């Protein structure tokens, strides 16, 4: 069976790292095919349809705001693009803005990713808030309950589904593949619809996940769970201290989530909580580009 995928894309990429800055305007077209075990792809000179480069002005504004407002900036990448894809009989388009930030202080590195279909989806205030927290961080640890900003809880779900696929832990939490209004088609032209992944007891085997993720035409599309969304019991009260970043990747194993959190006031908190003890704060959710997409929500952790 040969699946033929084509993509045309344009993008603006702004990079800052090690006292260097770069602005890349990119236009490219590619073709990919799978034939049994063989994955083939090549760049092509033929566009699927003409595309105009995104407007640079809002990106330059965002770059300026982050570069001047966030202390300890080690690396900043802002990408804005649009693409036309075709696979089989389906043709579809999408637009994206992605921001990756690395901030360092007190011997620690905080990584932050944000994304959406436009600059308005990027929470620049959060990035600046993390910058302030990094500046205030003395390396001292605090203890006690915390609430996780949606950008932090969104990092838990991809780790959780991988861990539970090996060894599920009973929990009042359930996890599903969700939807996103701007990203409704997967890497092989199939619609992305809600799909149960963990019902509180058992995990749906990854071989049954209906969709495949193709972040680039140069990459073989792999089965993935998109736009992860968790349902949890509601918290009775919300802790005052808010964690807005992580200084280590969050790890889920044996039914617990572990890592180190950076709080808005600059305090560090060791996270070691049972997944079954996580409680939901507000109803508001925000999408983050972790794995194939993850919806974060405010989460209370007894810790």
């Amino acid at each position: 069976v040969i699946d033929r995928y084509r993509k045309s894309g344009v993008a603006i990429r702004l990079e800052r790292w090690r006292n260097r800055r770069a602005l890349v305007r990119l236009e490219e077209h590619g073709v990919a095919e799978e034939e049994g075990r063989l994955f083939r792809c090549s760049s092509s000179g033929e566009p699927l349809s003409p595309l105009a480069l995104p407007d640079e002005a809002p990106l330059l504004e965002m770059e300026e705001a982050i570069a001047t407002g966030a202390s300890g900036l080690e690396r900043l990448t802002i990408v804005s693009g649009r693409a036309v894809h075709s696979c089989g009989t389906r043709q579809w388009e999408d637009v994206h803005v992605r921001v990756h930030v690395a901030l360092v202080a007190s011997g620690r590195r905080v990584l932050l990713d944000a994304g959406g279909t436009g600059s308005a989806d990027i929470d620049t205030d959060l990035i600046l808030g993390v910058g302030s927290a990094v500046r205030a961080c003395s390396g001292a640890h605090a203890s006690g309950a915390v609430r996780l900003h949606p950008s932090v809880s969104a990092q838990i779900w991809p780790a959780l589904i991988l861990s539970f696929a090996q060894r599920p832990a009973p929990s009042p939490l359930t996890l599903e593949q969700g939807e996103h209004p701007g990203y409704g088609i997967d890497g092989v032209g199939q619609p992305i619809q809600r799909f149960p992944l963990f019902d509180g007891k058992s995990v749906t085997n990854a071989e049954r996940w209906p969709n495949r993720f193709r972040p680039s035409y140069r990459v073989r599309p792999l089965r993935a769970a998109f736009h992860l969304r968790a349902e949890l019991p509601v918290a009775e009260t919300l802790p005052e201290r808010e964690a807005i970043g992580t200084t280590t990747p969050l790890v889920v194993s044996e039914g617990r989530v572990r890592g180190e959190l950076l709080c808005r006031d600059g305090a560090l908190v060791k996270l070691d909580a049972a997944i079954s003890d996580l409680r939901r704060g507000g109803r508001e959710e925000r999408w983050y580009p972790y794995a194939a997409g993850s919806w974060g929500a405010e989460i209370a952790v007894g810790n």
Partner: protein
Amino acid sequence: VYISAVREHLYASITRDEVWIASDGSLTPVVEKIEAGRAVTRFRDGSFELAATGGLSPELHRELERAVISDKGALLLEAAGRGGRRRIRLIQHARAVVHGDGDRDTHSWRMLLVSTPGGRSVAVAPGELHQFEHLLSAHSPALPEVVDHRELPIEWAAGSAAVLMHEAVGHPAEQLRHDVDWPQWLSVLDGGRNPAVLDDCGEPLQRCELTRGQQPSAWRRTSYRDVPMQRMTDLTVTATGVTALLPPRRIRIFLLSSGRYDPLSDSITLAVSGAELVTGSASSPLAPFILNASRASVAAALAGECGPIVTYPGVACFDEGQRLFVGSRACGLLTRPLREVE
């Protein structure tokens, strides 16, 4: 440091990247990627600006394509070895740099990355694999010895000191970090061995002494989509005047599977995949291990030279999303137990 040398130019490249699985002599292709494109590259007001586009003019395409289409049958068969399972990756790359004043430079290279299920891997230019075949096919016992590598001196043999210095000296020098005092007898030179080869901005490579405050001069990039960065090209590690006597009991390292420099902790991490415990005239294979050390402790542990300059299979260096190959040669070096210097 050398940024004023970067002139506006057109950079064009074709990369052909193939992966094959060899199993008991039979070869199966699993990945084939061909990427061609061009980018007008300029440096102004402290920033790089790239206008990058996929595809090439027919003339440029024909010229560069010739360098990446090769008779690879014999090459792959040699890489497949005599039996067992291997993953073979063949990368062929050609690039042209064209300046507005008519200056033009083309360059091409091929690299073969061969790895075994046991975690051993080499990155070599085709035709050189036979020199390193013994590293891939070395017998791995079911129960290799396990020792605390921090308690023992280490002999960096078979050119492996080039990887140690790649991480401890090379990457920090790329980032202009020269805050560790390296012994005067140690020299880590980058670039300039072949004056005919220009960098990926079409400028001559300079010979840079990385332990004396210099930064690699070469602007390198993986493809037309990537921003040029000052990266190592061809590392040579030598020592002058300080010879170390090999202690009878030591670790001898001859192959590494990966390495990393972390600027935040100013430390290096090396994954050692080929090593043995030497005791007198006997030696026994060691299980793979991870070596972590601060750069300062590596400098403090250096005891001296303990062998001639040897070419190490090349290093496939991944940094800022760009994979580049760095030639690597080093004399044998001896380091004292890391525990003693920390």
